[in-house]
């Protein structure tokens, strides 16, 4: 029987090293004797749960959110029906909830499909405000001169910023710069729309926003493309 020369214990004949101290076992015979190990080599095959894929996770999130939104919808609808025997004021919360549901659904279902998301995220707003304006007294009042251009502005600006976010190669300070530019331009256009609706075409306050956002955004772009030059920001500011 083989022994470990270091710790002095007797080991199983098929051992190459001592199980305690890992010292090589010196065997007299060159070949290992025919010895059956006391335990089988294999472990039972476990049924491993396959982890949820990203798509499954998104659909689960969608399901949960849909369910959560569905509850207040039913509650408001039934209260309106019970109290007034009609659906009138409930149209406001219902249309808002439906809007929220669509806005959440689109990016979860059409993940990374930029064009569909851009349309899907702005079109519902157009319809929503149209509905709200109509619910009020059955006519269009503020929809065409005010709601339509503001929604258009938001849609176009956020789409441009989003495209910038997706297309740009080295993400870093350039992303906040794009957002700042977006904020500045949105304010300018909104000011233009509102002032035109109230009095005559022109701008009032938006230049105070535009100048600092453009300057700050420009400074960030300068930092990003001239100083950091696309290097990983985390590495630079790692505390």
């Amino acid at each position: 029987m083989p022994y470990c020369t270091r710790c002095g214990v007797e080991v199983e004949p098929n051992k190459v090293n001592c199980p305690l101290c890992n010292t090589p076992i010196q065997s007299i015979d060159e070949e290992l004797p025919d010895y059956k190990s006391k335990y089988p080599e294999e472990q039972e095959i476990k049924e491993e749960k396959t982890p949820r894929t990203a798509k499954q996770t998104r659909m689960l999130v969608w399901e949960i959110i849909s369910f959560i939104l569905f509850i207040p919808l039913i509650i408001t609808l039934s209260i309106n029906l019970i109290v007034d025997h009609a659906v009138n004021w409930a149209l406001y919360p219902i249309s808002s909830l439906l809007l929220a549901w669509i806005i959440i659904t689109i990016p979860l279902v059409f993940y990374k499909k930029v064009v569909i998301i851009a349309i899907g995220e702005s079109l519902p707003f157009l319809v929503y405000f149209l509905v709200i304006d109509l619910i009020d007294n059955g006519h269009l009042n503020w929809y065409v001169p005010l709601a339509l251009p503001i929604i258009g502005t938001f849609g176009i600006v956020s789409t441009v910023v989003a495209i910038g976010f997706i297309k740009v190669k080295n993400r870093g300070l350039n992303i906040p710069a794009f957002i700042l530019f977006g904020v500045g331009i949105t304010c300018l256009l909104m000011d233009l729309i509102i002032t035109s609706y109230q009095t005559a075409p022109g701008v009032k306050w938006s230049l105070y926003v535009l100048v600092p956002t453009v300057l700050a955004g420009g400074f960030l772009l300068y930092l990003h493309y001239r100083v950091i030059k696309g290097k990983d920001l985390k590495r630079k500011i790692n505390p």
Partner: protein
Amino acid sequence: MSSSSVSSIPEKDFNSKKFNIKSLNLDWYRLDNAATLFTLVNSVRIPCMYRVSSTLKNPINVSKLQEALDNIIWRFPYYKVNMRRGLFWYYWETNPKRPLVERDVKYPNQKLDVTKKGVFPFRVRAYQNRIAIEFHHSLSDGTGAMTFLKALVAEYLVLGGTKVTDWSDIFRPNSTPDLEEFEDAFKKNYLKTAPNPQKIANAFQVPFKLDEKGTYHIITGIIPIKEIIQRSKGLNVTLTEYLIAKYLEALQSVLLSFPEKQQKKLTKPIRLQVPVNLRRIFPSKTMRNFSLFVTPGINPRLGVFSFDEILNQVYHYMRVEVSDKYISQQIARNVRGELHPLVRYTPLSIKKLFGKAVYNTMGEKLYSGVITNLGRINIPEEIAEEMEDFQFFPAPSPSNKTGCAVGTFKDKLYINFGRTIKEPVVEKFFFENLVKDGLPVKIETN
């Protein structure tokens, strides 16, 4: 007594057998006091599974073993159960299914989904010449598993033609279970007036990284019983006390093997969990859990202990602590905890959240290891002749890292270390020291 009166049962007739559980109101019952905690922490890292095994002279015939299991399970109605979820606690329910023999695996004592419907809280495994039983600790302690394995091996051998004249304490399929075997002996011996035992500080724990989930490394040390008894007798201590002292010494050596800076951080009391079979102190025939621990140890903050000092400490500690008075303090604390209305009326799902924290602070964190001695396994001569060994394996522990279970069969002592880390650091010091003491040690691994 003849044995083959109930030789083979086809599966469909399996439920129509004697001992009417339902009329005795035993078709469902509460978990015992110790079991409640084990079920709350059951996980891959803390599977609460331990094992007894026996190697026979000849290779195992699996279909014959299945037949033996079919026969013998009726004698153990408290093991023919399934754990079910209640609103406040888990409970045992008679399992209508048939336990099946499984193939053995490389790493024993892995997690068993005991709360799944129809799952038996134990496994019966066969490999080459060996029959092994893995018990979930909520079912019973070492004594229960040992009694079950003895009965199973005896029935298996009888089916194979072994003639037995004297059965001694072995359970036979045609005998009727005693109702006392069902009892929760903790509650029976609950002394309401006993104060809680003193709280103890957290213990030193071997600071190695756990090996992958699902692994469990076994090192078996086999020593001639005569020589090791001679050695412990020479020191005027029992075999268990000698082994406890050696284990503590090994843990101290592990601590001292770290560089000084790290040692300072790690230096905490070295303390072992030593289960005591309470059936010896409070008479009970229960086949469910009935054991608690004493916790001998040393405090390395007082300096390095020599082996004689450790042995001295262990010797006196054991004589004081292993007494009905001190043990009943522990029983009182545990039962009181279970019966507290705030605990009782907390929904099970919330109990489960706290279960692990309680288990850690009350149990695992206070100990550096566990050593349990099943003692000499007595088996009638005619059966023992067909058996090579009878071994006992500890449950994996993610915080103690190592555990040790000991049993004596025929002329050999089997010391089984199980560990959840890669490096056999404790085992190395432990067995090397035994060799230095002049004892011949044979090592087997999985």
